[in-house]
């Protein structure tokens, strides 16, 4: 590399900018030229609802992060369901919930190992697409659970309860707890998490209802599903907004960290906390009055349904089209718009009911 003189550098810069401008002038490829061609789900050939359930299949579970209690519970559900159906469970995944490249390479690994189906909770709606489409071309069935990809990159999505229900129920819970009045904030996970952002969208929509006219959403903080960061973000929210009346944390890691902070501070019982959490995490905070009520679906059931869906896809009973049905474990499941299967209404936990649940 020769020493560029300042003059030469300037000429290069000018040439580069000139070239860029020239290319703009000639048109070029813009967003408008590219139609979203991944919008429709990828149907896996014709479906035969009467086909026999295949046995001895291998379903690879790929959570957002391994050793995360929530995904471990979902994995246990999947493992149990697969054992009931006579098939095999296997789990791989990255150690960090924001390691997109890691998740992509795990999809590739499962493709290489020729599993029959992949059940994946996507860190990112687009990043897994190339790898998942490659897997589907190789005959592997793909079902997303917990967090979806673009519909064209999988056969079906098992949704953990309607996203809209989940968003709205959290606002309703908090509004009741603070008497429909005051400043509230949200403590989310990663700023890019698809499911979090969808729920937050529905929360904002719910807040438009006139009955919430005295409630003001003053901030959204991101704890990146890290206990320490979430703890600090909670502290930050309270310092920044001294009149804060309540916090919604739609993430199991976030709500636990926020509960830990509130429980040890002067805000306990004064600032209300709700969101999505697991009964085991929050039991002591419900008992000591930090948390009144919160919601969640059962991740164990979510994992089980993902496993059943994967087996139904691999057996050819469904292909991912709307209206298809399959029977498993005595229940009939129906595919909705874009191959989405809903787990059902979220469960609300409070001091009366929490001891009935253990996960």
């Amino acid at each position, binding site marked *: 590399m020769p020493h560029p003189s300042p003059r030469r550098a300037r000429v290069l810069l000018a040439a580069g900018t000139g070239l860029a401008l020239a290319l703009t002038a000639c048109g*070029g490829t813009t967003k408008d030229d590219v139609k979203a061609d991944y919008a429709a789900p990828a149907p896996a050939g014709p479906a035969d609802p009467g086909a026999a359930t295949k046995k001895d299949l291998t379903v690879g579970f790929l959570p957002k992060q391994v050793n995360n209690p929530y995904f471990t519970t979902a994995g246990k559900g999947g493992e149990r369901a697969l054992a009931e159906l006579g098939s095999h469970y296997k789990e791989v995944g990255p150690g960090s919930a924001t390691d997109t490249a890691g998740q992509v390479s795990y999809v590739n690994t499962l493709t290489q190992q020729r599993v029959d189906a992949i059940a994946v909770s996507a860190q990112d709606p687009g990043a897994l697409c190339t790898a998942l489409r490659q897997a589907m071309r190789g005959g592997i069935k793909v079902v997303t659970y917990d967090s979806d990809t673009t519909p064209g990159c999988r056969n079906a999505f098992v949704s953990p309860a309607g996203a809209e229900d989940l968003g709205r129920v959290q606002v309703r819970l908090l509004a009741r707890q603070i008497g429909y009045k005051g400043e509230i904030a949200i403590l989310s996970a990663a*700023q890019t998490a698809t499911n979090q952002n969808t729920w937050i969208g529905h929360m904002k929509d719910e807040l438009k209802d006139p009955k919430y006219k005295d409630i003001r959403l003053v901030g959204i903080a991101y704890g990146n599903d890290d206990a320490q960061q979430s703890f600090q973000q909670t502290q930050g929210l309270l310092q920044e907004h001294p009149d804060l009346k309540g916090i919604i944390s739609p993430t199991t890691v976030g709500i636990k960290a926020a509960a830990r902070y509130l429980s040890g501070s002067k805000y306990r019982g004064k600032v209300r906390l709700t969101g999505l959490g697991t009964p085991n995490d929050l039991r002591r905070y419900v008992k000591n009055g930090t948390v009144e009520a919160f919601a969640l679906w059962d991740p164990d059931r979510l994992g089980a349904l993902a496993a059943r869906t994967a087996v139904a896809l691999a057996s050819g009973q469904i292909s991912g089209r709307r209206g298809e049905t399959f029977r498993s474990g005595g229940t009939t499941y129906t595919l909705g718009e874009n191959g989405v299967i809903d787990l059902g209404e979220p469960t609300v936990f409070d001091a009366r009911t929490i001891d009935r649940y253990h996960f």
Partner: protein
Amino acid sequence: MPEPLTRAVRWDTVVGALLIVLSLLSFGCVDGFGNALNLSFLLGNTLPIALIALPMTLLVVSGDVDLSVASTAGLSGAVLGRLWNEGLAIQTIIPLCLLLGVACGLVNGLLVTRLGLPSLAVTIGTLAAYRGIAQIVLGSDTVTDFPPQYLDFAAGRIGDSFLPRAFPLFLVLLALAAVVLHATPFGRSLYAIGAGEEAARFAGIRVRRTKLVLFVATGFMSALTGVFWALHYASARYDNATGLELSVVAAVLLGGIDFDGGRGTIGGALAGVFLLGALQNVMSLLDVSAQSQTVVTGVLLVVSVLGPRLARRFAVARRPA
């Protein structure tokens, strides 16, 4: 002891040999390793690290380091996504992203050379700053709808072969880096600077100018990697490539480039990059858990810092007096 044998215990040759042994073993014993599809996955996933490792090798040889590379890549990807959303043509956006990388490198270089600050401290600072700007630029958006021919270029392979389509471009850049470091006066001056900055200055080498050029080149390559990453994974987000700087530094160290400067070869860096990449691929195929993979990588790193020193001591001891 004949000269070729003492040369053979050089650390970068050891790493190269390890890479060949690992590849041969995996071909024979690991199911799913040897086919074209898997090899293309391996190369494609390793390319971002390899791309940044090229300028990083030159920088570390001269005794400096740039830890802001992954943030620069993230920023470049975030700008790519934002401008694409704004409706600009992709042919305009990519050159702009590369220019932005040059600017990031220039900031690093100026802070190091004009203020005389240590590059480690400066680039830890800009690591945070560039990532922050990326977050401001793109926020929580994920942009995925880039033109298919660009996505295919970054993620596809040449026909049914194991070579990613972007591989020839990498080979050109690799050749360029190798020639610059090993066959030009500029390259020799980097070793001189790494061995002793004062001495190099007295020898008439324009140390500050040289370093500035290196930081700019690193910024440019980081931005290029950022664009490649966003297209390879069809995903422009502010947190793209988080932590990539550690993989790059790990690979470069493993390749025998001395962190104190003055020693190392492009060949060694390349062997280090692909040894780590192949190892990760094989461990995944063998169902080694993510945590154990991290441990293996960590142990390798410690070995790679010790290894070259031991290898040198061995070579010196064997040299006839």
